[in-house]
């Protein structure tokens, strides 16, 4: 008898608790945020979220950490199923396809009232647009520009000048290649993710995928020649390891760290790993070597934050993503293990960044760096098409022209 009374009491309490909980939940606006991180053991990001939640008692940010390799797929699935988060970390590669589908919220109205607007490095707002006059869809956050690492000690040994332009680069690459010792001049990345490095070499030669008016010129004679030059590094000059067609980041980085390659094109994301392994005195860095020193160019890629158009709490979502781009938070992020380049002038001018040669070279390049054109086809090119075309070109199955025509077609596709 006593037992059953207790049971009834217990059930009542339970029902009560269930009834109360949604009421309590309604007080707070819950924001879902998706992101990928380089290193899940780094407490930087969880700490930032905690800080934001305590600063904003009316907002509760809940984040979901998704492996980068599956990030795009999962976001596509979620948008298709109507379960997308409120806001998400995003790459400029994907803008075209998502904006085309109306999946992203234009940020202009919010940005007008955001006091950090002018602090963002001016050139970088373009990375959030899909053409010169479009609204801004992505809040800049972490920037990458490609530069070139080289082995100072090996260059000294052979009395070679730093590879500051492409002819010096090729000359050094040839002289430092010696397959019998398993040494190669340059770590060409033909595997996953190699499209950024490739684009850096394309623009450094003066080739462009689209012209100023937005017309696709990826199949122009200049672009075909520039691509041929890149393919020849592997096929004709043989200055890259034989594994180049499938080498992805891990292999290219590993080969540079192990003393197999003399030069590697990458960005600050790897500077700590490289100097730790080889010693700061042995690692040199130069801006992306251009064909014509008067016309420097390199590629940049932005990972920023977007608001999904299906979100019901866009104001709160903007509050969070703009807060992430503000000075202190940006500084924390850039100094962490996930750190790339700050997008704020006030952060970039801090001594920490100005006195670090890798940051400095990268930030200097930001003024003239070129991003992927934000066309719908870029998502497919960067996720799959470039890879299979490049590999077939490196294996000699297709010509440079055939490759560039396919890329141009994908860019033109609506």
């Amino acid at each position, binding site marked *: 008898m006593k037992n059953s009374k207790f049971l009834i009491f217990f059930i009542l309490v339970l029902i009560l608790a269930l009834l109360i909980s949604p009421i309590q939940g309604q007080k707070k606006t819950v924001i879902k945020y998706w992101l990928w991180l380089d290193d899940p053991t780094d407490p930087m990001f969880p700490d930032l979220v905690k800080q934001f939640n305590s600063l904003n008692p009316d907002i509760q940010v809940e984040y979901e950490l998704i492996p980068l390799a599956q990030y795009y797929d999962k976001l596509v699935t979620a948008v298709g199923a109507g379960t997308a988060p409120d806001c998400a970390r995003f790459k400029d590669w994907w803008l075209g396809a998502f904006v085309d589908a109306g999946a992203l919220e234009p940020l202009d109205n919010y940005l007008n009232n955001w006091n950090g607007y002018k602090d963002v490095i001016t050139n970088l707002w373009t990375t959030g647009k899909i053409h010169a006059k479009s609204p801004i869809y992505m809040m800049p956050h972490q920037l990458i520009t490609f530069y070139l690492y080289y082995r100072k000690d090996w260059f000294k040994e052979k009395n070679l000048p730093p590879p500051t332009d492409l002819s010096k680069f090729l000359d050094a690459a040839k002289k430092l290649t010696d397959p019998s010792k398993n040494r190669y001049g340059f770590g060409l990345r033909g595997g996953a993710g190699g499209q950024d490095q490739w684009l850096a070499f394309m623009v450094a030669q003066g080739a462009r995928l689209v012209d100023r008016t937005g017309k696709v010129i990826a199949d122009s004679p200049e672009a075909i020649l520039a691509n041929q030059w890149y393919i020849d590094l592997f096929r004709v000059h043989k200055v890259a390891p034989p594994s180049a067609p499938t080498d992805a980041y891990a292999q290219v980085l590993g080969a540079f760290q192990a003393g197999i390659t003399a030069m590697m094109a990458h960005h600050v994301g*790897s500077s700590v790993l490289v100097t730790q392994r080889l010693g700061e005195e042995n690692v040199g860095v130069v801006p992306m070597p251009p064909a014509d020193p008067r016309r420097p160019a390199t590629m940049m890629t932005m990972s920023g934050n977007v608001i999904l158009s299906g979100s019901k709490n866009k104001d709160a979502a903007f509050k969070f993503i703009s807060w992430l781009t503000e000075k202190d938070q940006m500084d924390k992020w850039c100094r962490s293990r*996930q750190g790339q380049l700050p997008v704020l002038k006030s952060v970039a001018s801090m001594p920490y960044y100005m006195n670090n040669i890798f940051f400095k070279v990268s930030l200097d390049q930001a003024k003239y760096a070129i991003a992927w054109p934000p066309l719908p086809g870029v998502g497919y090119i960067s996720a799959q098409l470039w890879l299979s075309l490049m590999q077939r070109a490196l294996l000699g199955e297709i010509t440079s022209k055939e490759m560039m025509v396919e890329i141009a077609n994908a860019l033109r596709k609506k």
Partner: protein
Amino acid sequence: MRKNQFFKYFTIFIWLSFILIPYIWMFITSIKSPNELYTFPLKYFPHKPTLEGYKLLIETTPFLSYMKNSIIVAIFTVIIALFVAILASYSFSRFDFKGKMPLSFIFLITQMFPAILLAIPLFLLMRNLGILNTPLSLILAHSTFAVPFSTWMITGFLNSIPRELDEAAQIDGCGKLGALRHVIIPVASPGIIAATIYIFIYSWNEFLYALTFTSDIRARTIPVGLHTFMGEYIIRWDLLTAGGVITGLPVIIFFMIIQKYLIKGLTEGAVKG
């Protein structure tokens, strides 16, 4: 005779080295410090072995939560899928009825499409059931996809048991289900154990649905958790390999315990008793 003994242990040695070398290599990698990973010429053994990777894995990542989720999902999947599959294979193996072949074939058809194709509609289904991001969604999906194969496997084993055996049991007063429980299952135990292992490992390693249906440590399983250690510019070899070494252990220990039922002592006892 001695030569025979030598030959026996020699084949066991070859077998084990084939099975274990990649795993041992993974273990060696897990105790190398990051600076010793990329070397040319290749260094086989670490200069200073370290267990730092394991320590970081347990202390700074939710690996133990992932493992807990994996264990829960795998155990419940085994219980549900095995129960369902044993009933179904009993039906296929012991009864003659119309449409048996087409029905058993329908089981297989569910397996003939790549899982990736089914992921989005299944995601919608789980959302409508309101069980996204819970172990239940994975238990449901894993059981469903494990049932067809395990049914076929168990049916195969049941077919190799003479029918006289269960008919005799029925004459002794057991009903049909009684015969299944007291005679067929014990006699078929090697096959049922093999199917158990199949179901358990399938659920343990399943990645795609685990990725699609779960979003945080409340339901995320080991395979998805391991993927988060591969960042954009940092690959945490130490965490990955340490996680890989640990992941296999519970299954292997579990198998070492149940493998004695693979041998026929039990079956003979059941037949005679």
